[in-house]
């Protein structure tokens, strides 16, 4: 049982949990908190105009961990992910309440600048979206606008190390001046990951990064995610439960805008505590 969550007013009150699986959808089941959080979200609500998309979600993102977010389509997992680096700002009608903190700083605080936030919380999107520029320029763009490189050699080394960490260097080192859009889908996605790494973020958000890729490319990306965990905190939204099981340490299950259950990945997939989680992972809906 999780004592800390019960101690927070308005959050999970798992009184009935003792009697086997939980039925109600009102409160999150499982361990919301981790010992060493990189980001902490408290009572996050997201509205698109009048419609509420996320209901009162509280969740910690652990340092140097991979947390995966699963759930049926339209459950709000992508919306929640996009709150973490304020990508939802681009949608006019979108409104976020609650608290999302990183380094004790509320990222929705009016005085906070989103530019440094997005430099420290990078993002990889569902569809590979390299800039229609050369491979080199794709990687170099972020460091350039943030002024991270002292000179050309330094920039070259950033590009090389980013591509190496994304496992793409060997494949593209001879054609850095060719357009990034000319690469295969899997390579493009790894290019996008390299682009995100190049500005040395602390957190990388991945929104279904493999949904447009074939199994071989997917396997490469998953391997990469596992390696990146050493240096980065990763939050990944995925439709594939196998993928969540393979790459993540913690898993959060979303349903209709609510965070139903969160916990160690092994525990979620072997002994889910909530009825809805169980139904989803056993394939009864989704």
């Amino acid at each position: 049982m999780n004592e800390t969550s019960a101690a927070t007013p308005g959050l999970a009150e798992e009184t009935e949990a003792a009697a086997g699986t939980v039925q109600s959808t009102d409160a999150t089941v499982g361990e919301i908190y981790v010992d060493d959080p990189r980001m902490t979200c408290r009572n996050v609500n997201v509205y698109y105009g009048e419609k509420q998309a996320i209901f009162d979600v509280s969740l910690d993102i652990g340092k140097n961990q991979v947390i995966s977010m699963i759930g049926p389509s339209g459950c709000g997992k992508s919306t929640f992910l996009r709150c973490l680096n304020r990508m939802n700002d681009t949608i006019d009608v979108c409104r976020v309440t609650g608290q999302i903190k990183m380094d004790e700083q509320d990222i929705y605080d009016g005085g906070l600048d989103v530019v440094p936030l997005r430099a420290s919380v990078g993002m990889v999107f569902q569809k590979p979206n390299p800039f229609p520029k050369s491979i080199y320029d794709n990687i170099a763009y972020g460091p350039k606008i943030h002024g991270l490189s002292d000179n050309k050699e330094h920039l070259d080394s950033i590009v090389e190390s980013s591509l190496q960490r994304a496992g793409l260097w060997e494949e593209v080192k001879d054609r850095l001046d060719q357009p990034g859009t000319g690469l295969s889908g899997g390579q493009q996605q790894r290019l996008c990951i390299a682009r995100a790494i190049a500005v040395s973020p602390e957190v990388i958000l991945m929104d279904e990064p493999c949904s447009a890729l074939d199994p071989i490319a997917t396997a490469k990306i998953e391997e990469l995610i596992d390696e990146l965990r050493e240096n980065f905190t990763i939050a990944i939204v995925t439709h594939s439960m196998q993928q969540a099981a393979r790459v993540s340490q913690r898993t959060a299950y979303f349903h209709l805008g609510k965070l139903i259950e969160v916990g160690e990945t092994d525990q979620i997939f072997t002994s889910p505590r909530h009825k809805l989680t169980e139904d989803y992972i056993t394939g009864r809906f989704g």
Partner: protein
Amino acid sequence: MNNQQQQHKKTMDRVQKGLDRRYRQERHFQWLGLGAIILGLVFVSFLFITIISNGYTAFQQTYVKLDVFYDPEMIAPIGETDPEVLSRANYGGLIKASMRQMFPDVTNRREKKVLYGLISSGAAYEIRDAVMNNPELIGTKQEVWVVADDDFDMLIKGHIDLRLPESDRRIKDNQLAWIHDLQEQDRVEKRFNTTFFTAGDSREPELSGIKGAAYGSFFTLLICLTIAFPVGVAAAVYLEEFAPKNRWTDIIEVNINNLAAVPSIVFGLLGLAVFINFFGLPRSVPLVGGLVLALMTLPTIIIASRAALKSVPPSIREAALGVGASPMQTITHHVLPLALPGMLTGTIIGMAQALGETAPLLMIGMVAFIVDVPGSVMDPSAVLPVQIYLWADSPERAFVERTSAAIMILLAFLISMNLLAVWLRKKFERRW
């Protein structure tokens, strides 16, 4: 089982029956489309054939060879070089003397006048320029090719119907005889008409050219482009990328779309009221013309630019924002470069529209008869379409071919501008 097979056969029969009808409809639709295209091509080729057949002769001009004696008595004493004196001399008299010498039989005053009329009044200026350039000509006798009068020119080009009775002809029988004599002596020649490209407008068709109008069009479009392109692109970027989506921006959008459909003469009246009457800018100048055309082209550019911005996929914006680019950087580094070809295409099409626009320029006085080639945006001038309108209005037969020739020049500009737009589109084709 048997029942099922029968059912299947029945279904297939019905499908077969319907199939013929479907294919027939498809063929008919194709024929209809093909017919429409052929009809369009027929009209276009009819237009081009008419214009070219009417206009190609304007690129040639009849010249007459005269033996001119640079009479010191009529110009100035030999050795005189003062341009003041030289420019004031009676050069027309030299030509008349030369003509009299060639046709000594013509003595009647009225006949003489008709004889002199064979040579363009512009010939005297040619002779003057020759003398001013080289005063040593005075006292010598030279063979000079001078421009023939427009009626003479029309006769040589075969535009005058000789079957008509003399009273209905612009060229009379005695003129015919003189021209025949000149031709016998190899004194008549058709040459490339450089005047048409180097002169401004004139009352005399053989002295008129489109340079003035072409320069006027150039200056007008220059003003139009320098104002409409930056303003249009800035407006489109603001509306598309920064403006909040609310009722006010909706109203603005509807109004921009409406402005694109406002008759151009209304813009002319607006320009007259605002630029000339209120701001006191001069009439007939390319500056005002360009401002009016800029107002008219703005909606076209804004609409095309917004469409170009819209067509940049949101994934590119997300990618840029995702690595921490500010909204302005996202737009200037990624969105604008991708949207630029579309914007340029829209702008060129807008410019082509402006180049062919006549009505609003009539309202601001660009329809005036202006001989001088404009040197700046503040010099009164005509523009190509207005020049066409003016010449089409003139009674002389020679202006008919010049009208067509001017249309050909205008069309050449329009086609090259549109080709440029197509080329830009092809060159920067979407690469994502």
